[in-house]
């Protein structure tokens, strides 16, 4: 059985080093999807690291992996997620062009309710992700809500 931290650190390291070892990523994805249950031992940082790493290497669309992690995240209280984790989650799904409507809705709600905490990078990632994945029309309220923050970002 893999320790969630070791697993997430390992894929993060390979993705960061630009070493997209296909067999390693495939094995880990299969293991997470088929053998690790509801991932209750995975904290938000682990889940985000995994999503970011798979999006970063981007050689193959791991639909099952992203779908499983999306289902895990929407069942959780997003208050326990830092906005940075949520923005990277949205960025990762958008990068691999996988739309999970409930996940994006929940992230949108969290971003709106905690907009004062949003950092520049998080705001940029969120807006890019929602625009890129085509959630602009459905979710204009997030864009409208974050407009003041966008203005600050642009002025910066």
């Amino acid at each position: 059985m893999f320790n969630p931290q070791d697993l997430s650190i390992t894929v993060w390291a390979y993705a960061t080093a630009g070493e997209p070892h296909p067999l390693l990523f495939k094995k880990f994805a299969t293991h997470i999807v088929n053998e690790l249950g509801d991932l209750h031992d995975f904290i938000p940082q682990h889940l985000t690291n995994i999503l970011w790493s798979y999006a970063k290497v981007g050689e193959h669309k791991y639909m099952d992996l992203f779908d499983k992690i999306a289902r895990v995240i929407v069942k959780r209280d997003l208050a326990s997620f830092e906005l940075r984790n949520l923005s990277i989650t949205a960025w990762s799904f958008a990068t691999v062009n996988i739309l999970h409507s409930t996940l994006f809705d929940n992230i949108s709600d969290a971003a709106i309710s905690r907009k004062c905490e949003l950092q520049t990078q998080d705001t940029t990632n969120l807006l890019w992700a929602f625009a890129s994945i085509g959630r602009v029309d459905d979710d204009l309220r997030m864009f409208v809500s974050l407009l003041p923050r966008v203005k600050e970002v642009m002025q910066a």
Partner: protein
Amino acid sequence: MKGCETIEELIHLASLHGDLLSTKHLSAFWSRVPQLLNIISSASGPQQKHEQQLKKDLHRILYITTKKLDRFSHTEIVGTILGMAKVVKHYSTSCKNNDSGSSKSYLPIFQDVIFDQSFNAQADLFQSMADISASTQQARLLSNLVYAFALIKQNPILYDGTALFDRVSKHIIDDAGSFEPQGISNILWAYATLEVASCPRLFETFAELMISNTKLLDMFKLQHFANMVWAFSAAHISHTPLFDKVAEVIVTTVGTNFSSPRNFQTYS
């Protein structure tokens, strides 16, 4: 010291002996503290009336420790540094995570003794211990030494003007073949964590060693692999042959019990 089951008991026992504490006992004391912090199960900490006395006793134990520093063996001094560093790390992490664990009730005892209000290790204390320990050449002690200083994010400048990590890197590189997986991953993690400029040669040495010695890689646990590849990435040192080799080993082991090393049952 090993028989003590609470922080109060440990501090009380050590303070009872005062100046009679040997360097071996002092090292054992500081090694035992972080172990006890990690296993505190009671939600109640020290009573307020005892808190001041405990802090006073801890101050005294620290005073005796510093007074006897030049008599510590390398094993004892490294054990002491590692114990203190783990206490600093314990509280800096639990504070960062806003952890309300029961060890928090002991925070006032340690704060301003071995770390400040911002959880920075007391620089003077660790500086003097670094000076004494830097000449050690034993593999296990070297890995524990750099690991401890990386935990507190310090790379002290020694009395001769060299930085600790630069000084010991020569011994580590010369003796690279004698380290076990835990030591290797701790060393690489430490050098990457502190972003030490002299580290590329050290990383290259270990990479070549691991590629050429398959038996060594067979002894690695996934945690060692994770920390090792993290270190290479964090240090911006690319080494495709090593990453490929590590991936091969991991892939063949996915789905098996990776919590144990392969072909080396007694390693812990």
